[in-house]
């Protein structure tokens, strides 16, 4: 059983060292009235034991650097180490966010240039890097739409339309921004049901949020019509950039009719997922919305970069300082290494890898959408229900085969689904090994379903009691 670092505490031991207190400092003592009187129940641990503890934790985890990670909707591509190298340069890490502009020209140049590059790539004319993650990017984009309507006195616009297969952050964010949600259906082809959309749109429609390709990995053939319908009612179109990897440099997002979008730097632009963060969710927009972008903004004036902290139309601030600057360094280098030329290859390869995988496993699962997919695709494991096997069981058994399971049970509208996204990083051999693992599991389902139903067997723990965790939450040591 694994011990927590608290349980490894040994009285008197410690890792820290501190500069000694000079004689001149000794006289200063804080007022007893404010001093903490309670114990600080943190562990006492030496550096070697601290190190071993976290190394032990690493052994109980897996990353892209170790294994294939075909998580649909997450874009688990290779995280180049050169990005990590440059992000650690003292010249970047030692800069205080409130340092005077003239002393951080390098940082301001990177912010300015990265926005220009992302704008070029997506077809928009302006943007911000400030949102700390995709969900915060969505919030900024929807807030900008709200301020746009407010400025034009469109007070009747109280609704945002969102597809039923959208990622949960979409409705959560729209709600946070003060809108009510109207849900539009996906048809059996996996595309937006245009008739349903036409029935939903009205003068109350502030906008529509869309991912294209959608969360099923399918490109909406009716995107230009969707754009016309929404715009003709005075609404704006928001692009959730989670699936940008499928059409990066292939299609201008702006030309599809979108007014504003967010990008996930930790998906499309390879910044590391870090076990759940930090991410970054830059927002790009067209002329209509650019005056509403948050502050601070970087501009070039008299040959120098400078900051604008106030702007009358801006929605205001969204981050404590400049957002996740360390992440921009990684994304910036990634783009410069590729150039537009290299970026163009990404979408092609991502889509090719996905279609190859889909074809190879099409005989193992139900394929709800037989047409060519984009960078990810959905299969259903419902054909094994009669053996008592669900998508979850297959996902767990894959862990025994040294592969991280694909996304399961998302999108919510597809029963027993697995959402698979190989990304452009993977070689054909890796893809073939994944297919072989699935073929083996399918064989096991036929001959020995128990081993799948009770998987995983080779991990530090077997299946965990999530009901107990929710009923009797134990949330700290």
């Amino acid at each position, binding site marked *: 059983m694994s011990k927590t670092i608290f349980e490894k505490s040994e009285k008197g031991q410690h890792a820290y060292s501190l500069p000694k207190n000079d004689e001149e400092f000794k006289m200063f003592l804080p007022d007893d009235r404010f001093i903490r009187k309670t114990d600080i129940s943190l562990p006492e641990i030496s550096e070697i034991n601290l190190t071993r503890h976290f190394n032990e934790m690493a052994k109980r985890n897996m990353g892209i650097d170790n294994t294939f990670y075909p998580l649909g909707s997450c874009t688990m591509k290779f995280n180049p180490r050169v990005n990590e190298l440059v992000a650690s340069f003292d010249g970047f890490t030692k800069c205080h966010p409130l340092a005077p502009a003239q002393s951080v020209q390098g940082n301001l140049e990177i912010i300015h240039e990265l926005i220009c590059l992302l704008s070029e790539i997506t077809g928009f004319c302006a943007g911000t890097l400030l949102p700390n993650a995709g969900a915060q990017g969505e919030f900024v984009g929807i807030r900008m739409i709200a301020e746009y309507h407010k400025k034009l006195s469109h007070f009747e616009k109280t609704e945002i339309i969102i597809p039923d297969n959208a990622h949960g952050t979409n409705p959560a964010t729209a709600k946070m921004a003060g809108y009510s949600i109207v849900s539009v259906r996906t048809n059996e082809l996996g595309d937006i049901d245009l008739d349903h959309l036409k029935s939903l749109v009205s003068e109350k429609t502030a906008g529509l949020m869309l991912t294209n390709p959608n969360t099923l990995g399918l490109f909406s053939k009716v995107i230009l019509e969707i754009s016309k319908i929404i715009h003709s009612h005075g609404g704006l179109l928001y692009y959730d950039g989670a699936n940008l990897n499928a059409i990066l440099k292939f299609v201008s997002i702006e030309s599809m009719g979108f007014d504003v979008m967010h990008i996930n730097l930790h998906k499309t632009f390879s910044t590391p997922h870090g076990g759940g963060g930090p991410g970054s969710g830059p927002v790009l927009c067209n002329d209509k919305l650019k005056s509403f972008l948050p502050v601070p903004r970087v501009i070039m004036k008299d040959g120098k970069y400078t900051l604008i902290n106030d702007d009358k139309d801006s929605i205001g601030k969204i981050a404590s300082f400049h957002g996740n600057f360390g992440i921009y360094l990684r994304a910036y280098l990634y783009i410069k290494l590729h150039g537009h030329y290299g970026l163009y290859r990404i979408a092609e390869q991502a889509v090719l890898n996905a279609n190859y995988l889909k074809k190879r496993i099409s005989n193992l699962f139900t394929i709800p959408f037989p047409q060519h997919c984009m960078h990810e695709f959905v299969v259903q494991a419902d054909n094994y229900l009669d053996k008592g096997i669900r998508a979850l069981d297959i996902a767990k058994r894959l862990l025994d085969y040294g592969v991280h399971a694909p996304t399961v*049970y998302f999108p919510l509208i597809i029963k027993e689904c697995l959402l698979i996204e190989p990304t452009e990083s993977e070689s054909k051999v890796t893809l073939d090994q994944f297919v072989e693992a699935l073929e083996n599991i399918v064989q096991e389902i036929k001959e020995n379903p128990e081993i799948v139903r009770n998987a995983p067997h080779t991990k530090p723990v077997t299946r965990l009691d*999530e*009901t107990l*965790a*929710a*009923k009797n939450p134990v949330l700290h040591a």
Partner: protein
Amino acid sequence: MKFTKTHEWVESDGNIATVGVTNYAQSQLGDIVYVELPKVGMKVNAGVEAAVLESTKAAADVYSPVSGIITEVNKELTEKAELVNTSAEKSGWLFKVRLENFSELDAMMNETDYKSKNSV
């Protein structure tokens, strides 16, 4: 007992109606880990969310089938949320309402109609 399309049941005794979710509903939700109940004294309207059932993977809104004032909530569920699974239509009851409009009950399904549409 009367039933709604959204899987709530109501049993009235004079002007007090007891409300819960059906056995079918609990079977769809999985192990209930937490129940968010309305406050006693709160006004509820028919068809409006009054309680929330949480499992590990889902959260389901419970709509009050009737309008009125909440007179009592099932305190046992604080410690034993699983009662909703084991006895949805009896000891897993959620809240009681002092009825305002008896005609609301007439519009609901009876047991045979409901169970013919929703079998576990």
